[in-house]
């Protein structure tokens, strides 16, 4: 009975995490098309939601070890228990909500890793964490991702502005629809997998699924796809505002250039197996395109806040995960206290966010030409 309850709680929390993952990352694909008016806000999140849902079904190849070797598992290592996964998920969810409240685009994967690391340290000691893997798989890529995307976005912004004339640049809006859709699809194929991996790991650990069963059950794929799509549709408007308006003012040509850089970098990183965070790539692209356009200015204070958020993500999610793991170590009562605290925190952050709502209406744009072009004066009957 006890194990069923824990597994059910882990699945529920994993889906909550999946939901926060969706609304946290809508901005990566859709902040720039919304900012330039290439897509209406509601339309943009609807497209992103559908593509995330579809994307979740596209890849059958599951990340068997979602920890990616970070936590020493198997022989001579430690057994990560469902209670630790639960604690890790709480850390990830709480940190995702805090960064959302602050409007910071931070990596959901890092939040998940951080939460799991924190929980594992409390549950199994610091020795269970592979420091070298932490540096090479997370810290160094976190520097390289925005740098790479930023340089590429800078160059292609220069190209786009060099070739086209001012009156032609509205055409880039059509291109933006395609590039941002590709980012959304790629996001769906990658990110819903993480939650599927967590749920499948838990099912295996609890003995509800054979280890060699080959990937997640179809119902797991379906609920994960649904959760990430709903999260995406609800739109993390605060983060969209930061990425689309906060860092720099994005014009259609810049939006297209930034998304082309983001898409190319993400697809290349997946193809060559050098994992880069989508959030960090997308943020780097926006900064790069801000530097690339003459006369545009980058608000470095905002960029600095975002970078600080990235630095803090793993330790902060880890701290919450560690506290949750400590409480969970008191058995089933501890786990229930954990869940109650987590739900309380979620409700509190939600209520706090109502003090200043940011939603799709903040991105209203006048129809192009509605105010810009004054009516031509009639000069007699000359044609």
């Amino acid at each position, binding site marked *: 009975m006890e194990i069923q309850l824990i597994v059910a709680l882990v699945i529920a929390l994993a889906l909550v995490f999946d939901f926060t993952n969706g609304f946290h990352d809508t901005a990566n694909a859709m902040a720039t098309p919304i900012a330039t008016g290439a897509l209406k806000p509601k339309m943009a999140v609807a497209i992103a939601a559908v593509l995330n849902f579809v994307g979740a079904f596209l890849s059958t*190849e599951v990340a068997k070890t979602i920890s990616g070797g970070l936590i020493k598992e198997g022989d001579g290592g430690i057994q990560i228990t469902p209670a630790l996964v639960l604690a890790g998920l709480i850390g990830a969810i709480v940190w995702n909500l805090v960064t959302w409240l602050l409007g910071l685009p931070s990596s959901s994967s890092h939040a998940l890793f951080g939460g799991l690391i924190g929980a594992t340290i409390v549950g199994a000691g610091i020795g269970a964490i592979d420091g070298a893997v932490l540096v090479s798989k997370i810290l160094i890529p976190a520097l*390289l991702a925005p740098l790479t995307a930023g340089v590429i976005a800078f160059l*292609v912004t220069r190209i*786009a502005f060099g070739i086209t004339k001012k009156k032609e640049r509205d055409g*880039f809006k059509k291109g933006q629809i395609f590039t941002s859709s590709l980012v959304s699809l790629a996001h769906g194929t990658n990110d819903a997998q993480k939650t599927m991996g967590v749920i499948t790991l838990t099912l295996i650990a609890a003995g509800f699924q054979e280890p060699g069963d080959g990937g997640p059950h179809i119902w797991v794929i379906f609920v994960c796809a649904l959760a990430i799509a709903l999260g995406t549709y609800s739109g993390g408007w605060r983060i969209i505002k930061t990425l689309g308006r906060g860092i720099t003012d994005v014009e259609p040509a810049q939006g297209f250039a930034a998304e082309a850089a983001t898409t190319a970098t993400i697809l290349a990183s997946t193809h060559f197996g050098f994992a880069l965070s989508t959030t960090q790539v997308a943020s780097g692209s926006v900064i790069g395109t801000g530097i690339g356009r003459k006369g545009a200015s980058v608000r470095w204070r905002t960029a600095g806040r975002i970078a600080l958020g990235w630095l803090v993500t793993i330790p902060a999610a880890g701290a919450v995960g560690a506290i949750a793991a400590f409480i969970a170590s008191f058995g089933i009562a501890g786990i229930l206290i954990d869940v109650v605290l987590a739900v309380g925190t979620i409700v509190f952050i939600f209520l706090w966010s109502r003090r200043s709502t940011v939603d799709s209406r903040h991105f209203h744009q006048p129809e192009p030409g509605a105010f810009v072009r004054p009516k031509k004066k009639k000069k007699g009957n000359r044609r």
Partner: protein
Amino acid sequence: MIDWLAFVSVVISALVAACLVVTLFSLALRLGDGTETWRKGVSVTLFVVCGLAVLFGIYLIVPALHQIA
């Protein structure tokens, strides 16, 4: 521990791909602006090439397309 070769591959391929697509799309917009008939044709052709790039992107995203089972 860092797979620098993979990273360099990522940078080069992403750089080339992004520059190519943005150049083609920009040229397509630039040429689509004129009145001469040849410009229209070239412009449409360039848009089609950009469309092919999008299809290649989908090919890369969907594992079933590039992994022979």
